[in-house]
């Protein structure tokens, strides 16, 4: 079974990620058995059918798709995938933060795509708590990427107080 990092542990995981192949359309594609992360287009086209068929719901957003498109469905989704088509495409960092901070999403946010060790620290700070590491990479080694820095200057999902609000206490400790 494939393994992912979830909550800083390596765990077995059986969620599939549905992508539309050439010639397939959101309306025509066969729904796989759950648990599955559906492309946004499939979710929007066939929401009622999916909700009737699946207990655990999951959708993935590509890097050019924002959380606004899921606004009405946030609370029913167990997993939201955010895709990194290239690891230098940084849009999904904003998507993840918005899901957590603006839409108060508390389920799993999973990084998909070109997910590498050296991005994990920033991803975690933005509220991503599950990482489907690129298959050719050493997932055990990548775990270290979650803990690159012991603190951070900015407020983010993991630490809502910027360092300047905590500095005095930190230095006194």
């Amino acid at each position, binding site marked *: 079974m494939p393994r992912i990092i979830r909550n800083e542990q390596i765990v077995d995981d059986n969620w599939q990620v549905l992508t539309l192949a050439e010639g397939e359309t959101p309306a025509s594609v066969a729904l796989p058995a759950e648990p599955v992360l559906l492309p946004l287009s499939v979710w929007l086209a066939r929401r009622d059918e999916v909700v009737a068929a699946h207990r655990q719901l999951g959708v993935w957003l590509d890097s050019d798709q*924002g959380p606004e498109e899921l606004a009405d469905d946030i609370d029913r989704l167990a997993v939201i995938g955010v895709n990194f088509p290239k*690891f*230098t*495409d*940084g*849009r999904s*960092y*904003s*998507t993840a*933060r918005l899901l957590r901070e*603006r839409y108060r999403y508390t389920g799993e946010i999973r990084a998909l795509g070109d997910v*590498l060790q*050296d991005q994990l*620290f*920033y*991803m975690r*700070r*933005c509220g991503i708590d599950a990482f489907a590491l690129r298959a050719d990479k*050493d997932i055990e*080694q990548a775990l*270290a990427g979650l803990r*690159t*820095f*012991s*603190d*951070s*200057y*900015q*407020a*983010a999902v993991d630490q*809502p*107080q*910027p*360092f*300047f*609000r905590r*500095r*005095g206490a*930190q*230095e006194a400790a």
Partner: protein
Amino acid sequence: MYRYDRTDQQLIDERVKQYRGQIARHLAGELSEDELRPLRLQNGLYIQRHGPMLRIAIPYGMLASAQLRKLAEISRRYDRAVGHFTTRQNMQLNWPQFEETPEILAELASVEMHAVQTSGNCVRNITTDHFAGVAPDELEDPRPYCELLRQWSTFHPEFAFLPRKFKIAVNAAATDRAVIRAHDIGLDLVSDERGETGFRVFVGGGLGRTPILGKPIRDFLPRRHLLSYLDAILRLYNRYGRRDNMYKARIKILVQALGVEEFARQVEAEWAQLRDGETTVTDAEFARLADHFAPPAWLTLPAEEPAHAARLHTDKAFANWVRRCVHAHRTPGYAAVTLSLKAPGVNPGDITEQQMIAVADLADRFSFGELRVSHEQNVVLADVEQRDLYDVWQIARSHRLATANIGLLTDMICCPGGDLCALANARSLPIAAAVHDRFDNLDYLYDIGDISLNISGCMNSCGHHHVANIGILGVDKNNEEWYQITVGGQQGNAAAIGKVIGPSFYAQEVPEVIEALITVYLEQRTASERFIDTWQRLGVEPFKARAYAGRDRRRTAKVEPTEREVVNA
């Protein structure tokens, strides 16, 4: 200046460890060159024409003497005993060994320095006025705000992989010396009618392929909201900036596409969701940062030192240096001194190991142990007593740091160009040398007076040629080096982008063409006009006519600047 506390130091040490691991994984074959590239760039490491180049951050240009000594030592041990100051107030080492770069970063960390985000598609080094804290026309010291921005931008988790690089500059003086409108974000410190400090915010400026001046999107942003407002701008850019074409990926293209009013409206809408949260900066933090930049222990001195005045009368060379290289200071009896790195025969902005040590010694002895790097690629001692100027001059002169050409034609901003840079279309250093050769007479330079001449070896415009009175851009045509000349650009409050005067020139024509432009000025100027004033009064025609007079233009068909891969260096 700012000194690290335990956490600041720890983060930089952890960065060194992270980078060391990345290089080790790369050498072990676990991290491909493509995967390493964005990581090494965010630690300032380029792969250049002859090998690696390491760009070291000098936050807003401030250096302590001990830091400059460390740079001298690093340049000797790991490079060819020379460093190069850049227009982002940073230092580049052109000959480090790839495998030794983690050691260099560790050395830097030992003196509270780093190479964080000196390249890559992220927020780059924050720049400001090299006379910050001492300029008579300053409203408030901009450096505490620069340090606030340095910390905010350092390892910002959301904005490490933007569509393109992102540059921010801060001005806090009546005269802008930080070219803020040539930046992605320019911050102009202002105070409102109640005396509250805030910023006028400009967005979308930049040089490069599409030079454009930033436009104001907010007239007054109270300082406590600075970070949340910048978060809003950067979030919009991160989400909606173009990523399909790297030449259209800067924020200026997004601002142009939306229109500045619509862009401003969207920033306000995003900011409305972010403002007044935990990122609102506290007065305690402003006070803490300001303490780091408290004025040094200036003495109470007479505004005019008689011995100094006497020397100005008796020593013409000294007087010339004072006229060009010594600048007003807000405190009586003190002056700021520019040490010129534009001596003839020297690559503009280059500083040798021995010169670094000499400058550090000068700073210790005469300027409270601190110095600044200017974006014009010179070094500034900000707090020199007037009565010490003669000693400073003599020492500086013995190290070839006292060329009295600041603000003159040979005080050129110049990128390393095709001699070193993999991105360049043409060499820039031989052009700078040729200008020096042609204009080697100081009296002639004094007669020409205030003028700026900048040189870039490619469209990336590291040499700021667009905002020079005379700008020179290297272009490539069928593997030949050609040079396009712009006139009429300027920095400062009346910042302007220069205009191309016509078809490009061969390298050997460039000094003659510059002389032709200068001759038109000298013939046509009124008593009070600088070059730029005469240009603005007369327009392009007389300059263009003289520049092309007697040249066979059949050889010089219009050259379209070509570009090479920029992000993949």
